């Protein structure tokens, strides 16, 4: 085999080849790390939204419903959008990590584990610091988008109905307007469990666990605060907010 050493040194000198700068040789790796960090942050946001939607059920509702029904509702109203986006970020994070300079050294299980752990920790922090709740407040019209689980309260066939009381007919009957714009007559009695913060008055938003009797007629077993209790709403020109304090809830005009 020929000796190239002299020839290579000559080529380097003749063509004025110089070693590329550190930045130039490393930029790809920096870009991958940046993309990886973004994926972790995005994944944490999606994960916190999954937590937000799953915890929307609340322990009261879980106790009221039979286990089978509760599990069924969890399954059908699972925040699949966030779950899918969360899984996409885990997968993308994995692929990007593999492209980093020494990403090949680690096996699939290790990388996936680290990514899921990082996302779970950051996502939980985002949940406990209520960053996920602020997301829906910060983005106009995002309530349905951020909380797809609100749709749980639009399932009268499964015993869940939610909306705003628009008329109190008597001590046993009131009418609510659901998010879909339907008016439902709701019958209740002394046996109906009304959570202490709730008042059966116009303007209150309620979640009702009960039974559908006929089309637009519902019997309430339990009335609770639904997860959308504090949403601002527009009435004419005024924005109204329902504010709940320990002594009860009031509508506040902003």
């Amino acid at each position, binding site marked *: 085999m020929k000796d190239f*050493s002299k020839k*290579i*040194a000559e080529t*380097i000198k003749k063509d004025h080849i110089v070693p590329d700068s550190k930045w130039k*040789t490393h930029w790809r790796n920096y870009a991958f790390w940046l993309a990886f960090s973004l994926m972790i942050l995005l994944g944490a946001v999606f994960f916190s939204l999954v937590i937000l939607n799953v915890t929307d059920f609340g322990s009261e509702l879980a106790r009221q419903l039979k286990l089978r029904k509760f599990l069924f509702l969890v399954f059908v109203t699972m925040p699949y959008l966030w779950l899918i986006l969360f899984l996409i970020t885990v997968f993308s994070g994995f692929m990007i990590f593999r492209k980093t300079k020494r990403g090949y050294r680690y*096996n699939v299980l290790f990388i996936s584990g680290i990514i899921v752990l990082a996302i779970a920790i950051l996502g939980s922090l985002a949940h406990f610091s209520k960053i996920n709740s602020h997301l829906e407040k910060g983005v106009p019209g995002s309530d349905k988008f951020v909380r797809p689980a609100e749709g749980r309260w639009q399932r009268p066939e499964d015993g869940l109905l939610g909306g705003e009381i628009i008329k109190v007919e008597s001590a046993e009957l009131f009418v609510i307007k659901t998010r879909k714009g339907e008016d439902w007559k709701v019958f209740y009695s002394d046996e109906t469990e009304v959570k202490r913060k709730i008042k059966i008055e116009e303007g209150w938003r309620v979640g009702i666990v009960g039974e559908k009797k006929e089309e637009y007629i519902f019997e309430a077993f339990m009335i609770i605060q639904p997860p959308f209790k504090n949403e601002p709403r527009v009435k004419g020109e005024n924005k109204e907010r329902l504010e709940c304090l320990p002594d009860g809830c009031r509508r506040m005009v902003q």
Partner: protein
Amino acid sequence: MKKPLNELTDNELVELSKENPDVFEELVLRYQNRLFYYIKRISYFGDEDIEDIIQEIFIKVYRNLNSFDGDLTFSTWVYQISRNATIDAIRKKQVRPQSVRLKEEDMIKIFKSNIDIKNEFETKEHLEEIKEIMANLPYKYKEVMILKFLEEKTYEEIMDIVQKSKGTVASLIARGRKMIIKEAEQKDLLIN
């Protein structure tokens, strides 16, 4: 007093080469032969093609000296670059990597490293069968076996050269070994 170049470590030569291309000559001298035979083993190229590839590799190594951070040894790093450059060259020439042609002694060395064959006489007697077994071994197994048994690299070095996890490397070697043993059993080359 300055040490002569041939007494300097690879890392010291890398640092000096950044300022003085003449120092780089020493690194080329140290590695050109090893890389020549390595590329010959993992490709189907003739000597002239390999010489061209090697020159390109060393120019690439020089350009990328600043990305050598000591995380790998220089040897592993240069093998990694050589492997990638060879695979690129194979793709460009559209030569299937499966068509690697190993020398007889290399084939026997890999074969013997994996199984216990009867004796030297029978090795020669069964040369054609051994050649057939090695020729049928898929490229991905052959590549790691070449690094392990011919280039005598450790698992960690192979992992960095082929850029696969250590577990994957170990499993490729183990599977390759199983394939060789199975074939050898079928051809009655094993001691029972």
